[in-house]
């Protein structure tokens, strides 16, 4: 037995370890009052040091109870013994390596239901356990009643109700530490089929483990690599058979294991709480719960989504940001005041026409690049990010993910793909990178394709909304086209690409009113990032366009594109927007904005141009990322497909509009 063979790094802990002090580990979620309890138990003599090999800080202190010395360890917050974060990993390491004499699980009485599944895991691991239900005072204020003795009886472990911040329950906790004797709580049982699988695995486990075999088997099934390594080391030759067995079971349950397990634990918790945990009879359903329910049901969720989009995107971003603010900044400040002034200054300073063109010409760095970036794009992204951050802070996005899960499944995606799609409305380049997090390659390819094709980025979206909101009906046609294409291409892609759609499940954080400080912080931070990103690009693009102009390469390109534009029923000037669009999506949209202001496009042409431009080729950056994430073959095929498809759709739309005369 080498319980204390691990060397401690500082003198104090060495002396503690040498004296053979028993260790007490405090575990639990963050923000449940663990540290308050730790301080109350240990008093002044505390050492805080990094856990070996990590950046995670662990606090240790001494407590003398009934004349016996204990070392108390405040572990980093953990949500599950299947670790995801480094903190959770360290917390579990402490449980595994330091063999605590007693584990105290601290949880928040107000969130008993959500936190008890981890208690089940600890019981299952057969660790010496005491449960501290903390923050009882707040729970009582909310009218929650918890029958502590009954809870203790059902779980088979000591349970203490406490309010550590008010020093309630401390003496009971001390007593529990002092009187600890091994408790044998009944280990929770799952569905028979899972129990059989677990039994098969546990039978193959022969080594000595600190956690129970059942807990080890579950962690193996959940694909915990650290546990797998440990088991491989301890089992030696026997590991091969074991691994094959685990792999087979994992494959059998690949679709929904995490979900199933979480539901099973929930059901057990429900049974434990039935009768021991009472919510007030007339529990007021908060507005946030009511709203949350409304967002999730398709019948109410979809109209709600439309309302959110109408007021958020159309009214706020489209009309206010891209209309009022752009008119002010671009129309008044740049066109009427700044551009004439700077043109005058540059004309006086620089005698050479060509150089003057570079700064203040038709495609000048200042008169075009800066004007687009600051005058058109800035107000639009500012309003968009403000709206986006508000939605984000309210907790609406995960609900949106669950709402669209059903539709997304049809196109071979899951609700999880909402994350990149939603991000795509910010910036498609960033979103394409996030597709990496989707579970299957198939999902990633479909998401990348749809992002490249049908998701306009924030600035493009804003400008297009602003453009189209001036021609009645145009917006509806544009939106209808994109939705149709999104679903159609998604459906086809899901047909063509082999593979199944995985399960999707996510826990919903509570909905709340967005907090202004959060919203502003996020908006400012996103704008800062965005601006740093686009300004240099706009300048480079301007320089390239200027080069194109003085070498007449640009004219040739416009000429070359004229027949294509003609086929779409567009004037040849529109080609310029498409060339801009290749540099950046928003640049192209801003070009279109310019054309419309000059009165060159009628509503039909505007709509056709907007649809084609939205679908049309992803910007350079997005293409590069696509290549990086998916490789040459996939990204080139996507690029080619998207470009032909965009012009094809534009052509069809033009014919339809001409034939029906809707616009």
């Amino acid at each position, binding site marked *: 037995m080498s319980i204390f063979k691990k060397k401690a790094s500082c003198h104090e802990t060495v002396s503690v370890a040498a004296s053979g002090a028993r260790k007490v580990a405090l575990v639990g979620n963050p923000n449940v009052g663990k540290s308050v309890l730790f301080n109350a138990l240990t008093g002044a003599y505390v050492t805080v040091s990094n856990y070996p090999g990590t950046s995670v800080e662990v606090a240790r202190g001494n407590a003398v109870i009934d004349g016996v010395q204990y070392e108390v360890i405040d572990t980093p917050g953990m949500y599950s013994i299947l670790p*995801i974060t480094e903190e959770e990993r360290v917390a579990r390491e402490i449980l595994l390596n330091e063999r605590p004499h007693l584990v105290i699980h601290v949880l928040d009485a107000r969130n008993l239901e959500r936190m008890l599944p981890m208690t089940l895991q600890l019981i299952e691991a057969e660790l010496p356990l005491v449960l501290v239900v903390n923050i009882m005072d707040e729970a009582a204020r909310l009218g929650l009643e918890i029958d502590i003795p009954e809870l203790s009886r059902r779980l088979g472990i000591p349970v203490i109700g406490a309010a550590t911040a008010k020093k309630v329950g401390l003496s009971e906790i001390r007593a529990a530490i002092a009187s600890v004797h091994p408790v044998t709580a009944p280990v929770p049982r799952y569905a028979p089929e899972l129990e059989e699988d677990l039994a098969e695995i546990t039978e193959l486990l022969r080594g000595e483990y600190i956690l129970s075999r059942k807990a080890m088997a579950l962690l193996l099934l959940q694909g915990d690599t650290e546990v797998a390594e440990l088991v491989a080391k301890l089992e030696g030759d026997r590991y091969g058979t074991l691994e094959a067995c685990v792999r087979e079971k994992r494959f059998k349950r690949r679709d929904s294991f995490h979900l199933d397990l979480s539901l099973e634990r929930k059901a057990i918790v429900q049974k434990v709480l039935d009768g021991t945990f009472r919510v007030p009879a007339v529990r007021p359903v908060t507005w946030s719960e009511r709203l949350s329910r409304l967002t999730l049901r398709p019948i109410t969720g979809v109209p709600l989504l439309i309302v959110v989009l109408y007021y958020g995107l159309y009214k706020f971003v489209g009309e206010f940001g891209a209309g009022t603010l752009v008119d002010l900044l671009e129309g008044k400040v740049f066109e009427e005041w700044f551009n004439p002034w700077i043109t005058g200054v540059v004309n006086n300073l620089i005698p050479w026409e060509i150089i003057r063109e570079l700064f203040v010409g038709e495609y000048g760095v200042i008169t075009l690049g800066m004007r687009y970036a600051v005058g058109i794009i800035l107000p639009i992204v500012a309003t968009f990010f403000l709206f986006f951050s508000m939605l*984000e802070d309210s907790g609406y996005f995960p609900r949106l993910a669950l709402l669209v899960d059903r539709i997304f499944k049809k196109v071979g995606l899951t609700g999880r793909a909402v994350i990149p799609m939603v991000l795509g409305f910010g910036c498609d380049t960033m979103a394409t990178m996030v597709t990496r997090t989707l579970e299957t390659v198939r999902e990633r390819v479909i998401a990348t394709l749809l992002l490249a094709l049908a998701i306009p980025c924030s600035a493009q979206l804003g400008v297009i909304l602003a453009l189209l909101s001036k021609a009645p009906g145009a917006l509806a046609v544009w939106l209808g086209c994109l939705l149709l294409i999104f679903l159609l291409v998604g459906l086809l892609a899901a047909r063509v690409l082999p593979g199944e759609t995985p399960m999707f499940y996510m826990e919903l954080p509570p909905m709340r009113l967005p907090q202004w400080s959060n919203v502003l912080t996020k908006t400012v931070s996103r704008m800062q990032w965005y601006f740093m990103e686009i300004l240099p690009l706009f300048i480079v693009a301007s320089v390239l366009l200027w080069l194109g102009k003085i070498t007449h390469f640009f004219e040739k390109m416009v000429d070359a594109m004229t027949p294509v534009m003609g086929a779409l029923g567009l004037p040849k000037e529109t080609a310029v927007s498409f060339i801009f669009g290749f540099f950046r999506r928003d640049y192209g949209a801003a070009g279109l904005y310019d054309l419309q202001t000059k009165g060159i496009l009628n509503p039909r042409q505007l709509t056709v141009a907007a649809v084609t431009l939205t679908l049309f080729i992803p910007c350079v950056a997005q293409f590069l990322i696509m290549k990086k994430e998916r490789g040459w073959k996939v990204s080139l095929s996507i690029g080619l497909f998207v470009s032909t498809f965009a012009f094809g759709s534009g052509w069809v739309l033009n014919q339809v509009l001409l034939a029906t005369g809707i616009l």
Partner: protein
Amino acid sequence: MRCGFCGYEFREEEGNQGCSSCPMSSGCKMIKCPRCNYENPPEPKMIKTVKKLFRRGGTPK
């Protein structure tokens, strides 16, 4: 910080910062949630220092 998507609480240092490969710039500052990988914007430095000052002054001893 709290993930804007799934509500998971984590420390800024824990978030994945995987965008150094991005061709757009020298890598973005976004912090990806360790649970769902949603990109969260970091707190701008200025706001962080202001907050810290408040916390220092506000904590009861």
